[in-house]
């Protein structure tokens, strides 16, 4: 049976990680375009919310203690912060020099990373945000309005058809639809099979192949999943190196160097530039930066 907890946990062990159950801490990110971080921290403390700085993120905090939901405070409603899991805050920070750039956020809804990109861009340049689900696009639009984002255009579009935009981008964020991981979904092992993983990996390759066509020379593409399965991560990036004329770039962020040998298959050595994040302080995650070779 290619599913179940034992099956997946055995795979993780082969990749060098011993399974442990974890309790995820709720994380938030300060929207610096709307408030200075120092002022924000003081304000949250005054309203009875105790924060713990996330050491590997700028503007990221774990909720240490709160008497009420952090998704219903006036500060949240005024767009001063977003609720965003710690590892999910990493991808947008990997781009260099976002100001005034043309950015594609290819799988954007519900918009946590779109708002983060707008924040890092200080509302300059242009973000083109795509998603396919109308309900999720509405959530994205509300998120943009709440956080006072002015530099984004949203299209209801499958990113596998992104060429229809007739645009080229300096930066592309692929926060891929993926199988997820057990740390963010308590029912994950019951729900997922290797077939789901393979189906998602195929979808990711299709998105990557299509959007890579829109990357300018010297442009940067960040690929991220919250999956622990190598088919959606290292194996897909190895495929991209072999078939899409892309190369990995070294990144400096939280996480471990990705393995270059997956279940006895030797991958391109540059896969080690990617980062694999095993669940612990954050959920499971994978991230890498690609450029045209």
């Amino acid at each position, binding site marked *: 049976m290619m599913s179940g907890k034992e099956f997946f946990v055995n795979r993780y062990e082969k990749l060098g990680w011993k399974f442990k159950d974890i309790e995820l801490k709720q994380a938030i990110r300060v929207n610096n375009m709307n408030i200075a971080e120092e002022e924000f921290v003081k304000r949250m403390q005054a309203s009875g919310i105790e924060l713990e700085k996330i050491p590997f993120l700028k503007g990221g905090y774990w909720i240490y203690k709160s008497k009420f939901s952090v998704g219903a405070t006036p500060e949240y409603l005024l767009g001063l912060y977003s609720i965003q899991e710690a590892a999910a805050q990493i991808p947008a920070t990997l781009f260099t020099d976002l100001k005034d750039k043309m950015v594609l956020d290819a799988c954007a809804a519900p918009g946590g990373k779109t708002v983060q990109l707008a924040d890092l861009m200080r509302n300059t340049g242009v973000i083109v945000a795509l998603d396919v689900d109308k309900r999720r696009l509405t959530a994205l639009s509300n998120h943009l*309005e709440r956080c006072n984002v002015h530099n*984004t255009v949203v299209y209801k579009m499958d990113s596998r058809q992104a060429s229809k935009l007739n645009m080229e981008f300096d930066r592309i964020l692929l926060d891929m639809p993926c199988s997820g991981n057990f740390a963010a979904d308590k029912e994950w092992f019951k729900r997922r099979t290797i077939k789901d993983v393979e189906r998602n990996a195929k979808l990711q390759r299709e998105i990557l192949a299509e959007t890579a066509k829109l990357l300018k020379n010297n442009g940067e593409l960040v690929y991220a999943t919250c999956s622990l399965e190598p088919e959606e991560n290292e194996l897909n990036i190895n495929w991209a190196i072999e078939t899409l004329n892309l190369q990995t770039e070294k990144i400096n962020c939280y996480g471990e160097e990705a393995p270059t040998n997956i279940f006895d298959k030797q991958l391109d050595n540059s896969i080690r530039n990617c980062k694999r994040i095993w669940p612990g302080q954050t959920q499971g995650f994978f991230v890498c930066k690609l450029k045209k070779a």
Partner: protein
Amino acid sequence: MKPIKDFASRFDAIIKLDENLIVKKENRYFLVNENLKRAIDKDFFYAGAYLGKIRDDKFFPSFILLRMIAKEKANKIIVNEKTEWLFVCGRDVFKGGIIQIVGSKRRGDYALIINQRGECLGFGKILCNLDEEKCKVAVKNILDVGDFLRRETRQT
């Protein structure tokens, strides 16, 4: 553009927006910049700064537009922290929660509701002349930022 200007005038405010940069998509208005204008085609879902929408001949503003008006000379009622909480929960404003009034105090006029940090929480309609002693429930809540949560509930 007219619905937006008319809406701002309800707060005795004048808002200056470049008409060439206002884009209408079905019943919704967006303010874009030159860069965005080049990146949008007719099929966009959302663009730039959302300003509001027309429904049943009535203009419903966005919070981005309210924040823009709040930067201008306009009717504003500044409230204390307790009233801020109550207001974003959909409650009306009691006179006792008002710290300062800028502009009209007249019954029937509209005012932006602002917290002590100068942030716009929404807007309401003045229910009684604010100079009068017998005035207790001072402003009827018409729209507050708690609407973002109510939208989520409506959409699920």
